[in-house]
């Protein structure tokens, strides 16, 4: 994956398939402590102990169309090569939480990438789900909650091109403001 934003899209797609209704994406960057943390939490059907133990095995997948599952192992590997850590917690009823930590200044850390695109893929591809995205950099914060947007636009679909343009501009503007794109 070329960008962290692509890993995020990929991991959140797991939440979609797990039948989640709300997915929370939290990114925390702090240059003083040289850390970048990505936390993705969902309320979908989680994994039991046995499945969780195998989730990081590239040769394990719940899908039947192919025999490998690379999403989680690739993110774990990305953390490992940047002096980071990777944890995953899950239970059948409690949903799943993935935490990926990176050393912010590590030469091998992928750039954040296009978070606006990632969020729009998730939002327009799954108009019935809610996504909460918060991004903090050195204390400055940006947040986006699709529930607020949906309440405002009432019966206009969230994937209407005008709304899509608004959301894209809002994310780009917000991330620019907190300095996450620099």
């Amino acid at each position: 994956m070329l960008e962290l934003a692509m890993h995020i899209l990929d991991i959140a797609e797991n939440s979609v398939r797990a039948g989640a209704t709300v997915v929370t994406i939290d990114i925390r960057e702090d240059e003083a402590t040289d850390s970048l943390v990505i936390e993705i939490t969902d309320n979908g059907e989680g994994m039991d102990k046995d499945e969780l133990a195998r989730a990081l095995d590239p040769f394990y997948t719940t899908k039947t169309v192919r025999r490998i599952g690379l999403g989680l192992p690739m993110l774990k590997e990305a953390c490992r090569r940047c002096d980071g850590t990777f944890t995953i917690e899950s239970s059948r009823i409690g949903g799943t939480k993935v935490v990926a930590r990176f050393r912010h200044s590590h030469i091998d850390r992928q750039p954040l990438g296009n978070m606006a695109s990632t969020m729009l893929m998730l939002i327009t591809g799954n108009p019935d789900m809610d996504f909460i995205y918060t991004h903090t950099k050195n204390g400055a914060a940006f947040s986006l909650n699709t529930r607020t947007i949906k309440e405002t636009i009432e019966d206009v679909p969230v994937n209407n091109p005008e709304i899509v343009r608004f959301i894209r501009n809002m994310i780009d503007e917000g991330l620019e403001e907190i300095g996450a794109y620099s």
Partner: protein
Amino acid sequence: MAKLTIEDLKKIKEKVHSDTFLREGDRRVKVTVHMGTCGIAAGAREVMDTLMAEIGESGVSDVIVTTSGCMGLCSREPLVTVEVVNQEPIKYEHMNANKMRQVFKRHIIEGEVQSDFALAKGQEKVD
């Protein structure tokens, strides 16, 4: 530029309301971008970005875009399925931004299947 607010969103809502907009059931074409790990790594996000931009620019309101997971043909990604109402779905392989623009203009708008990039016709079996 002034900061975008919920007030701006309300204005957009009013504007969209005065135009006609697509409601469930009015769709003519459904486009599915396959968004598994393989698709994402191969560039599916850029393909979907292009498609949404084309829809926005052309002003068509009867095309809906959705995503799905991997269907097991990872080596052919990015894959896009175009499903015109009452017609067999067409799957396109190795998509990129340019091919997506062509498929949008020629197939989705004008109805001519772009057989150069087409992989298959018909519905896949999903688990």
